[in-house]
């Protein structure tokens, strides 16, 4: 599968001898018709508990409202390419309506409510999310293409956990800033990405509400459905009308929102390109801004690491959620003396990654989120292949319909390779080597981004030393992609500013008065 280098070819063969062919279809056990070596029988999650409307309107002032624009777009299931529902497009007037309703709710209700009562609403949202977790998980998978096991075990539980966590802060803000007093900002415009749709909504809404703000949330164009289902939860929780407004639409809707002069705060998670444009637009105004942007995070493996576990960490770091993770460990830095056996192990491990129907409970890698993203990743892979280096991709049968890409990586990369610099946001790993800890640090930092990093070593002093020299907002040691509402998340350099999660996550939604 590697093409340019004879030695690499041999190591692939050993790998395959060990991993064998996991996907063989026919039995080789003679008379026995049962063979555990065959592919696992499909274990599809039922979609019965989710009812998807044929059409979704905007959620403004506590109720569903048809858009002024009268226009709708399709939300596609990327695993099939089929439309799930049509979703309203908010135009400038709809945005105005949403911001106005958030302003009214702020002035008349939310800012006057006691902090403990605010907290109670947020707790209620968290509990209802937990109760309806399965429904949300299935919808998240249908709308976004992520494996059901991730939606079920990561996205939804973490989203609920965020609401629980910040509900607790609502009446304890004075303890977060001892000796100072704080006040809410007002109306927040929040734009979230498509990779963790509900979780990102929770990251945005929970701290904003806990700090006493009201919100206009704009979900991503390709994944609006769980945010719209969340609007049902908000109604069920009897959140006062207008405290949270959810407006759907395209990038244009997002532009209308950030350009709206009635906002006190804008929070954006998404691409660095759009983030820069927002920051430029807001430059003449005092609107508070927090940005959580791209990344090209380095995953550093030293020779004294627990190698088999590091392989797991690398797999999780880059192939989790199809690599649609802003903090994905998309650059693997291997100590040169272990690079060859490590890559061999990585290949062997990849043989067991199951790419396919996201609703199958055994699927590890689901569908790429959209056709546009699929095309972007393919074109980046093409560029990578044209540059120096070797390419390896898991040889597996992909579903005929929908947008799928088998996990892959490039070896023999340097910091000059495109794929060591450009954020792919897909299941594509760029592997390079280093000789000393100092070189590892230089290479890890040699990027425009600074979101996350991972370090694998069994030597604690080395971990602390290297961590202190990395320019990254989040650094994991001997693990990767671990999230907790209590831990702040955010970046350096072009990965953005402001923190989400933890006590630090309150700060973007507060003004410290004195």
């Amino acid at each position, binding site marked *: 599968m590697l093409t340019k280098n004879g030695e690499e070819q041999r190591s692939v063969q*050993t790998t395959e001898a*060990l*991993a*064998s*062919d*996991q996907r*063989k279809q026919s039995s080789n056990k003679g*008379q*026995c*018709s*049962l*063979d*555990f*070596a*065959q592919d*696992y*029988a*499909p*274990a599809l999650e039922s979609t019965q508990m989710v009812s998807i409307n044929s059409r979704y309107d905007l959620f403004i002032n506590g109720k569903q409202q048809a858009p002024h624009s009268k226009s709708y777009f399709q939300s596609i299931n990327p695993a099939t390419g089929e439309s799930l529902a049509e979703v309203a497009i908010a135009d400038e007037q709809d945005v105005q309506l949403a911001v106005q309703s958030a302003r009214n709710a702020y002035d008349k209700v939310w800012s006057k409510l006691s902090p403990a009562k605010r907290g109670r609403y947020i707790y209620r949202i968290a509990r209802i999310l937990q109760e309806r977790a399965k429904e949300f998980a299935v919808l998240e998978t249908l709308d976004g293409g992520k494996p059901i*096991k991730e939606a079920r*075990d990561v996205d939804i539980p973490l989203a609920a956990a965020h609401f629980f966590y910040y509900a607790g802060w609502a009446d304890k803000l004075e303890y977060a800033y001892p000796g100072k007093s704080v006040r809410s900002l007002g109306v927040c415009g929040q734009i979230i990405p498509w990779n963790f749709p509900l979780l990102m909504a929770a990251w945005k809404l929970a701290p904003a509400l806990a700090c006493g703000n009201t919100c206009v949330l704009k979900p991503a164009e390709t994944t609006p459905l769980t945010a719209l289902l969340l609007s049902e939860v908000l109604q069920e929780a009897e959140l006062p009308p207008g405290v949270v407004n959810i407006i759907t639409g395209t990038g244009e809707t997002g532009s209308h929102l950030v350009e709206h002069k009635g906002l006190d705060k804008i929070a954006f998670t998404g691409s660095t390109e759009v983030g820069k444009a927002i920051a430029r637009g807001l430059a003449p105004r005092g609107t508070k801004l927090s940005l959580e942007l791209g990344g090209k995070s380095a995953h550093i493996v030293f020779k*004294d*690491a*627990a*190698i*088999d*576990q*590091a392989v*797991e*960490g690398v797999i999780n770091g880059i192939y989790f959620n199809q690599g649609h993770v802003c903090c994905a460990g998309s650059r693997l830095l291997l100590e040169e003396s272990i690079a060859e*056996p490590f890559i*061999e192990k990585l290949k*062997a491990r990849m*043989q*067991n990654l199951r790419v396919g129907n996201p609703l199958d*409970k*055994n699927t590890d890698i689901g569908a790429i989120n959209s056709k546009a993203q699929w095309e972007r990743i393919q074109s980046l892979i093409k560029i990578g292949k044209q540059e120096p280096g070797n390419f390896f991709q898991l040889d597996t049968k992909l579903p005929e319909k929908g947008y799928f890409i088998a996990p892959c990586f490039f070896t023999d990369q340097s910091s000059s390779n495109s794929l060591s610099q450009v954020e792919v946001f897909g299941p594509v790993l760029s592997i390079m080597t280093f000789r000393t800890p100092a070189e590892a640090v230089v290479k890890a930092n040699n990027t425009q981004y600074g979101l996350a990093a991972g370090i694998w070593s*069994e030597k604690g002093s080395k971990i602390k030393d290297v961590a202190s020299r990395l320019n990254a907002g989040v650094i994991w040691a*001997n*693990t990767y992609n671990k999230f907790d509402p209590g831990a702040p998340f955010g970046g350096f350099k072009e990965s953005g500013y402001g923190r989400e999660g933890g006590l630090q996550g309150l700060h973007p939604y507060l003004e410290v008065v004195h």
Partner: protein
Amino acid sequence: MHQVKVRSQQGFIPIPHVPIDAVSLSARTKTFKTRSIKKDSKLAGLYLAIQMTDLTTLEGSDSLQKIRGLCTKALSPVSHAFQLSLQQKRPELPPVPRVAAVCVYPNFVADAKCMLAGSGVKVASVASGFPAGQVPFAIKEADVKAAVLAGADEVDMVIDRGAFLSGKYQQVFDEIRGLKEICGDAHLKVILETGELGTYDNIRLASWLAMEAGADFIKTSTGKISQAATMESTLVMLEAIADFYRAYGKKVGMKPAGGIRTAKQAIQYLVMLRESLGSEWLNPDLFRFGASSLLNDLLRQIASQVLGHYADQDQFSMD
């Protein structure tokens, strides 16, 4: 890091120190547990688990009749009527298979061998001062010799954990190698007693030591202490086996033993085996379960899978 090496006739053999990260290890085993194995995959797993079972009795109270009962069950795990009911429902299914072996004390090897002659079910014997291994080497040798002479196809020996933990790796190595020689054609399974080794790093080191010394199988536990096989300790050993295969091209078998009582657990182990060593290891020559009560749960689950309802406890022999 203290470099471990042992002396053999061929010279010094380095025993690599491979650190294990316990948190990530445990996270990995959870991914195997969350695999959803249904329908014919589940049935295939249940059949395979039976074929991989070493039906075991290792009690001070074992007697000839107890062993006879065990062997009879090994020969025909289910009644004729039960077999018929399965075939009525799913005629294409193969008959419920036999277990891989019975595992007994050396005293009962000859009797078990006699009862199982020609059946394909092997006789395994624990030996070497089981379960503690705290007897003079000469006695271990005699123990193994007796088992082999009585006809044991497989010998399950224990390592001296005290020696291992006090750093006497050479002694552990020499004992395994010495007993392997006595085994002749009999397969040697080396019990590490992982619950006494204290760390995953030690389990990994002991696995490598045993494989270098000639183990055909490495086995987690005696079943005689409360901490028996775990998914984590088994995964450490599976990864050691994978590395050993990469280094020498030799396939060593794996036997988790003790504490595996349910079909659900057995299938989780099979998923782990499949997704770590691959399908080449999915056969009784390279993987065994050491268990006594597992078999009946496997049979109950087969009944439920094929017939659509659970069988009565008493439908299967308690021997």
